[in-house]
C-alpha cells in the first residue's frame, strides 16, 4: 500500500511542473463565465431646489422584474415601455410599494409619434414632481433589452396563477429576471460649483465710460434623466448664437473703422435650468465688485432656444420706454425680421415678473429684478413650453439654417444699434467673409450635444467648460470662469451624483425550482444505483444471448 503511495507521489513529483503547466491554461480558459445581459440605464433627476426635493430618494435596484399589470408589485422592479407608464399607474405602483421602475425608451427618441412625445413630456413633468421612493430609470431599448422585455411580459410568474397548484407549478417553471444595478452609490454633491464663463469686447474710447451691452445664454440642459438631456435647442442653440456673435463682433471690433463705442459683455451662465443660479450669482458679484458693467448697461439680451420656427419672440418684463436703448434695438429687430424672405414673425411678449413664484420664467428676469433693461429672445412663446426641459430636445429639433438666419437678424440689429445706423445699410456689413457661417454653427452645435450638459454633470473641470473657455478666448478678452457654490447652511440647490449606471438582467429561477431539481436528481441517482446493483442480471442476459448460438455449434 505504502509503496503504491510513494510511487504515485513520485509520479506527481516528477510531473509537477508539467501538471502545473497543464492546470494554468485550463484555469484561464474557464474563468470568464458568460456575462448576463448588460445594458445602460439613466437615472431620473434628483435635486433639491430652494427647499423642495425633486425626484426619487432611492436609487438602488436589486430585485426581480415584473411587467406592468402583474398583480403583486411589492419589492419588484417594474419594466415597462414608455406608453405603459401613466401617472395614475405610477401612483398605483407607489402605493403598492414597488421597488423600482425601468422605463424603456426607443434608442432614437425622435422615432416616437407626436402623441407619444406629448405623453413623454407630460410624464417628465409629472414624475419629477411626484414625491416617491421608487427609483426610476430610463433605458434606451436595445434588441437585447426588447427580448428581455418580451420574456418578462410573457413569463408565467406565480403571481398571476388562478389556483394554488398552478402557482406552485408556475413557480417551478417560471423564468424570471433579477435586475441588478451596479455603479457607485448616489450621494449629495454638497459644494458643487456651478461655472459661468464671461468675456468682453471693449469699445473704442475710455472703456470705463462706455455703455455696455450684455449678451447672456445659459449653457446647461435639462431632462427627466440628466444623462439623456442633450438640450440641443434649449439651450445649445443659444450658446451657438452667442459664440457666433462673439466671433462676428470680435472681427468688427479689431477694425478701427468699425470699432463701436459700446462694450460688449458675453456671459455663458451655468445652472440656467435651476432658476438661473449662475446668472444670479454673476449679477451679485458684478453689482458689488465691478460696478461699471451695469451702471451703463444699455440693455441685457438673453438668448434661449433659437433653433427653430418662423417666429421670434422678445420676452420682456416691462416694455421698453420709447426712445430708450431697448426700444431702439426692438425696432431694429422687428424691421430686420420683416425684411427676411420668408418674413419672420416677430412679437414682443410682455409678462410681468411673478414675485410670488419661486421659479423665474426667463433668464432676463434676473436682470429685470435689478432694474436693468433686459429681454430674452426665443422662438418659444411661453416659458412653460415643455421643450425647454425635455429629453426630446435632440439635434432634430434644431434647424441650422434657421439658427443661421437668427444669428444674422440678431447680429444686424445689434450692429445697427451700436453704430446707430439704419437697418438697411447694416446688412452689407455682414457680407460674405464676415457673415454668419452655418458650418461653424453646425460644428459647434454638434460638439455641444455630444454629451449631456445637465448642470450636475458639468463641473468647472469638465471638458465642456474648458473648451467653451478656449473658444471664447479666441475672440474675446478677459475670459474668466467664475464658480458659484450653494450656501452651506441654507443651500439654494443641491445636486446628487450619478446619472448613468449599468444594469444587469440575470435569468433566475425561483427557490422552489431548486427543490424540484434536487428531487429529480435524487430519483435519477437512485435509478443508477439500482441499475448497477443489478448489473449481473444484465450481464447474464447478454451472456445467455451470446452463448446460445455457440452451444448450438458445439452440439
Amino acid at each position, binding site marked *: 500500500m505504502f509503496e503504491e503511495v510513494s510511487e504515485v507521489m513520485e509520479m506527481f513529483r516528477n510531473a509537477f511542473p508539467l501538471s502545473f503547466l497543464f492546470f494554468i491554461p*485550463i484555469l484561464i480558459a474557464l*474563468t470568464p463565465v458568460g456575462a*448576463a445581459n448588460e445594458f445602460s440605464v439613466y437615472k431620473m433627476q434628483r435635486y433639491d431646489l430652494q427647499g423642495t426635493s425633486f425626484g426619487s430618494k432611492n436609487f438602488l435596484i436589486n430585485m426581480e422584474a415584473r411587467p406592468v399589470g402583474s398583480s403583486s408589485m411589492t419589492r419588484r422592479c417594474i419594466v415597462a415601455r414608455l406608453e405603459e407608464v401613466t401617472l395614475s399607474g405610477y401612483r398605483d405602483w407607489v402605493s403598492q410599494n414597488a421597488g423600482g421602475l425601468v422605463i424603456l425608451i426607443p434608442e432614437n427618441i425622435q422615432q416616437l409619434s407626436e402623441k407619444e412625445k406629448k405623453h413623454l413630456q407630460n410624464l417628465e413633468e409629472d414624475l419629477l414632481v411626484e414625491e416617491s421612493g421608487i427609483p426610476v430609470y430610463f433605458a434606451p431599448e436595445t434588441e437585447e433589452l426588447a427580448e428581455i422585455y418580451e420574456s418578462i411580459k410573457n413569463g408565467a410568474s406565480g403571481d398571476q396563477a388562478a389556483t394554488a397548484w398552478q402557482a406552485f407549478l408556475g413557480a417551478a417553471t417560471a423564468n424570471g429576471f433579477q435586475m441588478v444595478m451596479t455603479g457607485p452609490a448616489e450621494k449629495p454633491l454638497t459644494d458643487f460649483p456651478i461655472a459661468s464663463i464671461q468675456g468682453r469686447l471693449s469699445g473704442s474710447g475710455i472703456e470705463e465710460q462706455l455703455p455696455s451691452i450684455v449678451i447672456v445664454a445659459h449653457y446647461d440642459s435639462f431632462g427627466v434623466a440628466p444623462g439623456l438631456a442633450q438640450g440641443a435647442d434649449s439651450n445649445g442653440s443659444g450658446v451657438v448664437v452667442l459664440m457666433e456673435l462673439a466671433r462676428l463682433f470680435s472681427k468688427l471690433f479689431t477694425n478701427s473703422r468699425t470699432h463701436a463705442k459700446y462694450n460688449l459683455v458675453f456671459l455663458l451662465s451655468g445652472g440656467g435650468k435651476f432658476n438661473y443660479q449662475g446668472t444670479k450669482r454673476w449679477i451679485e458679484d458684478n453689482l458689488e465688485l465691478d460696478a461699471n458693467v451695469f451702471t451703463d448697461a444699455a440693455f441685457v439680451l438673453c438668448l434661449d432656444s433659437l433653433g427653430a420656427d418662423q417666429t421670434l419672440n422678445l420676452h420682456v418684463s416691462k416694455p421698453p420706454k420709447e426712445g430708450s436703448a431697448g426700444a431702439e434695438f426692438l425696432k431694429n429687430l422687428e424691421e430686420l425680421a420683416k425684411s427676411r424672405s420668408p418674413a419672420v414673425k416677430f412679437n414682443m411678449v410682455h409678462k410681468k415678473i411673478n414675485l410670488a413664484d419661486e421659479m423665474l420664467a426667463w433668464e432676463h428676469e434676473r436682470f429685470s429684478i435689478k432694474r436693468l433693461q433686459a429681454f430674452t429672445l426665443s422662438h418659444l412663446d411661453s416659458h412653460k413650453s415643455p421643450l425647454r426641459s425635455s429629453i426630446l430636445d435632440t439635434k432634430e429639433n434644431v434647424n441650422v439654417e434657421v439658427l443661421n438666419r437668427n444669428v444674422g437678424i440678431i447680429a444686424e440689429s445689434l450692429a445697427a444699434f451700436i453704430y446707430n445706423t439704419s437697418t438697411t445699410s447694416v446688412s452689407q456689413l455682414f457680407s460674405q467673409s464676415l457673415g454668419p457661417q452655418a458650418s461653424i454653427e453646425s460644428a459647434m452645435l454638434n460638439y455641444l450635444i455630444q454629451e449631456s450638459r445637465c448642470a450636475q454633470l458639468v463641473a468647472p473641470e469638465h471638458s465642456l467648460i474648458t473648451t467653451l473657455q478656449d473658444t471664447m478666448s479666441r475672440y474675446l478678452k478677459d475670459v474668466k470662469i467664475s464658480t458659484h457654490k450653494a450656501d452651506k447652511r441654507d443651500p439654494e440647490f443641491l445636486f446628487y451624483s450619478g446619472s448613468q449606471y449599468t444594469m444587469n438582467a440575470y435569468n433566475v429561477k425561483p427557490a422552489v425550482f*431548486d427543490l424540484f431539481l434536487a428531487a429529480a436528481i435524487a430519483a435519477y*441517482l437512485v435509478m*443508477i444505483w439500482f441499475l*448497477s446493483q443489478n448489473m449481473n442480471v444484465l450481464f447474464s442476459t447478454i*451472456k445467455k444471448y451470446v452463448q446460445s448460438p455457440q452451444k448450438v455449434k458445439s452440439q
Partner: protein
Amino acid sequence: MTFFHFGNCVALAYIPYAIVYKCSGLSEYNAFWKCVKAGGAYLFTQLCKMMVLATFFPATDSGGDGLDVTGEFLKCTVDLADLVGLHLIMTRIAGKSQLKFMVAGMGWATSELIMTRVIPLWVGARGVEFDWKYIQMSFDSNVSLIHHISTAMLVWLYSRNDLNKSMLPVVTSLLLLGCYRPLIVEILIHAVGLGSWMLLLAKTLFTLCVGLVTLQMYLRIPAQLQNSYY
C-alpha cells in the same frame, strides 16, 4: 444560481462515479491508488497532446463561423494518443482482466471530471444567473464515464489475442468512432442545428449503443465464458 444549485450539479456529476466505483467491485480490490495512477496518466497524456496541438496546430484568431472539418479532423486524430495512454495504463496494472479496464476507465474519467468540470461548476453554477448548461454538463459527465469505460474495454479487447478475428474490424471502427466523437458532435451542431438537449440525448444514446456492443463482445471472449466473475 445558488449554492444549492451548485450542490445539485455536483451531486449529479459525482455520485454516479461513486456508485460505479462501489458496485463494480473496484472497492473490493483496493483499486483506489490504481485509479489515481490512471488519472495521473490521463494528465500526462493530455499534456503530451497539448504539446502536439500547440506545435502543429497554432491557434488561428480568424474565429469564423464556418466549420473547419479537416482541421478538426486532424485535431481529433491527436486524440488517438488517448487510446495509447489507456493501453499503457492497462499494461502497467497487474490484476484481473476486468479490473484492468475498469481501473483505467474509472481513473481516466474521474481525472477528466475533476480537470474539466469542477471549475466551471464552481464559477458558473453558483452565479446569480440560472442556466441549464450546468445541469447538462453534469449529466454529460455521466455519459463520458460510460464512454471512457467502454473505450478502455475496447482497447483491452483490441490487445487480446483470443479475440475472435472477425470482431477486430468492429472493435477498430468503434474505437475510431469514439475518438472522433467530438468531430461528429461539431458536425451535428453545424449541420442539423441540434439544440443542447437533443445533442445530449444523441450523445447518450450513441454512447449507450457503443457500450452495449462492447459489453457483448467482451462477454463473447472465451476466457470470459469459462471463469467469469459474475
